[in-house]
């Protein structure tokens, strides 16, 4: 039964990169996680296994939302390949698999199963509140930092006004591709928020948006250049 679940996890993991529809890709990945969670449950890791399903269901839902929002052709109505350095990646993936499997097959694997009477969740709770208390609270701080970071990066309407304000408009030339332009000096995306200080520094920001939109069509065509065919 574990074998079936593991095989299913691998198969649906592979489907992620084969299907055209982004929704299918996200939920294939979820299926892979669910299978891994199921394998965990069978290996008496009931809490971690089920919690994997719980957490990943939510995360893959969010993943699907963002995949659909930011991928061209999100539903795969126009089937096509979006890969680059395909051979190299294949080789790297195969190499990783073979290397790891060789290690697994040659190594002398320890064999000490969980004693059946272990109170799995209880032990974990004691560990969390006892020896690993610091890890636990650090995780809290990390998550806080993540929340703040995600808000700063992704929300436009900051306390000091719109995120577009103050950042210099990208140097968009006539008919130029929005992707692959010369970057502006104001630095990376993470400077967005800091840039709020110079309010209204550049009124052109708005008009630039319009242009980016006009070239939307070119952009899509362009992105296909990575098609290895």
């Amino acid at each position, binding site marked *: 039964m*574990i074998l079936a679940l593991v*095989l299913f*996890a*691998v198969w649906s*993991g592979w489907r992620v*990169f084969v299907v055209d529809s982004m929704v299918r890709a996200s939920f294939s*990945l979820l299926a892979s996680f669910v299978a*891994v969670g199921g*394998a965990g449950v069978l*290996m*008496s*890791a009931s*809490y*971690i296994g089920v*919690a*994997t399903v719980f*957490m990943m269901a939510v*995360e893959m839902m*969010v*993943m699907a939302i*963002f*995949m659909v929002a*930011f*991928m061209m052709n999100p539903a795969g109505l126009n089937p096509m390949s979006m*890969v680059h*350095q*395909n051979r190299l*990646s294949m080789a*790297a*993936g*195969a*190499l*990783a*698999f073979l290397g*790891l*499997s060789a290690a697994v097959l040659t190594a002398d*694997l*320890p*064999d*000490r*199963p*969980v004693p059946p009477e272990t109170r799995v969740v209880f*032990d*974990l709770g004691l*560990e*969390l509140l006892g020896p690993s208390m610091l*890890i636990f609270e650090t*995780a809290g701080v990390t*998550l806080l930092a993540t929340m703040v*970071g*995600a808000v700063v*990066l992704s929300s*436009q309407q900051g306390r000091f006004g719109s995120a577009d304000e103050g950042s210099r408009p*990208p140097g968009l030339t006539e008919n130029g591709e929005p992707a*692959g332009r010369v*970057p502006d*000096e104001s630095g990376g*995306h993470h400077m967005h928020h800091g840039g709020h200080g110079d309010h209204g520094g550049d009124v052109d920001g708005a008009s630039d948006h319009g242009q*980016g939109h006009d070239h939307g069509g070119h*952009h899509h065509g362009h992105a296909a250049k990575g098609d290895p065919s």
Partner: protein
Amino acid sequence: MTLTIVLLGASALIGIGLYGALSQQSFVMLMMGLELMLNGALLAIMGFWSQGIGGPPEAQLLAIIVMAVMAVEMAIGFALVVAVYRKRQADVTESLGTLKG
């Protein structure tokens, strides 16, 4: 035996994930590759924990940390995608290469 199966499966997941992370042009698909690799890691951790080392709670905690890493990676990754897209309408890794400057 179970442990061998599980670890082989985990390495397959890691291999596929590595392929995906390297080959996908899109930033979001790249993240899927990463998640798949972490999925493999999770499977391996659970396998070792339950079959190999007699179920110490630290390994469970490690699995939780792996999941936390996934959550953090996703939240920050997508926030970056939004920020970059807002600025340049791009979601493709190659076009992010110019961001270094």
